[in-house]
């Protein structure tokens, strides 16, 4: 396993190592932050001096809505951690969902990326991680397989990612990681513990490494929003009611996409304007919470993908079964295919 270049050695007296986990709700990553802290606590308990090191973990409080991107931060140190301010640069960035935007912010060429993906070089080029070290682990697939095996419903991709994660920190052993996982998940039953430990072990074994330093891997351009000065603001924190929230494309939150079902070929999914079962009854338009089903000349013509969150209500309420649901990653892939054909 070619992981020697991917180790970060924590030194005594040095500033803490900062880790950021990018995920979405319901992937289990709020627990990861806590498990990292527990890992360090375990090391303290097992060491002779009981002061092996210190760790802190916190979720970043924002719009934690279903599907919205979430952030969890950890700091690791062999000294007492005394500052809880947000660091300007992260030593490790974990990307649990590759559709999340803005993951290269606060990084430099020394940052190690750990991504929930099949191939590290491919994902580095796709996302634009720049010439960096990248570890890839197919955590979603691992979790699905282990879930099926044990019949458990609670094998989230987080533990597989953690298995790969410990390659970066040689002072943590796989055994210690499994110990913490057992502690965390024992409340959910034996099969949950079994599944998550299996995920962690597979994540560790199946991690792939790509040292992109010095290569031509592009870095995605981050445009920082312009922040105004105090005297450029309306007094009292007021805002003009000009609806500028439509600058936030909540379509980014989508993990599944509504699509039109072709009546003739029930298993062949079409994207686009062709209509078959749809009778323009407008029930979906009325029921869509985001008001993003598009209508022209009293006909339903499509979905505003900038804002569709993929909730699936349209699929649920359509009286004619004219709307189906497809995982977003698959839908994006099909879009790419279609674009190539044209």
């Amino acid at each position, binding site marked *: 396993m070619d992981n020697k270049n991917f180790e970060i050695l924590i030194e005594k007296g040095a500033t803490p190592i900062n880790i950021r986990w990018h995920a979405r709700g319901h992937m289990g990553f709020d627990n990861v932050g806590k498990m990292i802290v527990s890992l360090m606590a375990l090391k303290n308990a097992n060491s002779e001096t009981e002061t092996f090191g210190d760790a802190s973990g916190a979720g970043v409080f924002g*719009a934690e*809505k*279903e*599907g*919205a991107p979430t952030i969890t931060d950890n700091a690791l140190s062999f000294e007492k951690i005394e500052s809880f301010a947000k660091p300007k640069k992260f030593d490790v960035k974990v990307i649990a969902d590759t559709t999340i935007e803005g993951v290269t912010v606060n990084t430099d060429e020394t940052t190690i990326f750990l991504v929930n993906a099949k191939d590290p070089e491919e994902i580095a080029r796709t996302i634009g991680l720049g010439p960096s070290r990248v570890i890839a682990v197919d955590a979603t697939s691992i979790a699905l397989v282990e879930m099926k095996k044990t019949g458990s419903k609670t094998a989230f991709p987080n533990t597989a990612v953690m298995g790969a994660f410990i390659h970066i920190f040689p002072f943590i052993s796989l055994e210690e990681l499994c110990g913490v996982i057992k502690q965390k998940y024992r409340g959910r039953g034996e099969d949950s513990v079994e599944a998550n430990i299996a995920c962690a072990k597979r994540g560790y074994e199946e991690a792939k490494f790509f040292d992109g330093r010095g290569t031509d891997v592009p870095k995605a351009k981050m445009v920082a929003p312009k922040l*105004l000065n105090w005297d450029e603001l309306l007094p009292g*924190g007021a*805002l003009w*009611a*000009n*609806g*500028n*929230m*439509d*600058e*936030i*494309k*909540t379509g980014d*939150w*989508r993990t599944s996409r509504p699509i039109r079902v072709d009546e003739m070929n029930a298993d062949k999914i079409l994207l686009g304007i062709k209509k078959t079962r749809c009778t323009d009854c*407008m*029930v979906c*338009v*009325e*029921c*869509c*919470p*985001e*008001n*993003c089903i*598009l*209508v*022209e*000349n*009293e006909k339903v013509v499509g979905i*505003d993908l*900038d*804002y569709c*969150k*993929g*909730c*699936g*209500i349209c*699929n*649920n*309420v359509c009286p004619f079964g004219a709307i189906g*649901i497809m995982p977003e990653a698959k839908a994006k892939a099909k879009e790419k295919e279609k674009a190539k054909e044209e």
Partner: protein
Amino acid sequence: MTQEKIFEPLTRGFAACSGCMMPGMARAVLSGKPDDTDIVVVVASGCFVVATDIYPRTAWSGVSMLHPNFETAASAASALCASYKVQKRKHHLPNGNTGRKFRVVVLAGDGATFDIGLGPYSGMLERGEPIIYVCYDNGAYSNTGEQSSGSTPSHAITATTPGGVLRSEKAGGKDLVSITLSHPAVAYAARTTFSTMLPNDIKEKSAAAFAHDTGPVLLHVITPCPRGWGFKPSDAYSVSDLAILTGECPLYHAEKVGRDHIMHLDYLPERYLGGILHPDVHPITELLETQDRFGDLLKRLDWLADYQEEIDHRWLGRHGLIAKCEPYGS
């Protein structure tokens, strides 16, 4: 029907959960605004304001919104009415005396209304300005993590009633419409929700709310919450329909006629057809099974029996809905 509506007060990009029914609720309750009326919306702290106003962006477009301290949305609304009145009399309204009508609409969750805001809410009703108070009710303080509120149903699991511990008020949550109707000035009060069976209920009641301008109005909108109730985001309408069918979510409205508040049922579940109990028709378990928050209730037969009785009593009790409302369909 086209996409370009003249009055579209909220843009997309609404920062609410996937499948949240709040945006639909807001559009529906404002849909009844007549063209000759200007409004200001007062929003109490909760999911709604967080979803529509995160500096420097807002989802509000063309409508002013005020977010006062948490429990005081109703008080602020009263003062907006008073301000409009006095500035009109003294001829210093910002746009001059245009001759247009003016209404204040309050959007407040059950957290802001049933508990900390109940005093101010009552004060507002008693002062009698024609404010439209919309309580979007999902039975918990959602924005802060689903803590229980004065509207949480008996035995529901929330962050502060884990295990669905029986709450001290055995009779379940407070009845907001009843509390409201005990204030003589109230012009109209309605309970409504989303439904494929009565798809226009909220919009019709919104129109009625704007039409009743002689006193305060309540729109109590039961708003399903996928995150708080524990169901898939796509299932909001199925859950809502079941709530209506099982009688857990009654739909009715009351209008002031003379000195009385006359109540009308908008839907009579088959379970209570003819004013008698049909125990095998749509038992409450049909609804409870759709939501994780009733997980503990479903495990306890004694609680289930108690809860079923509670629901039935709401309809068939001595002062239940069937007794209080005008004959169904009249």
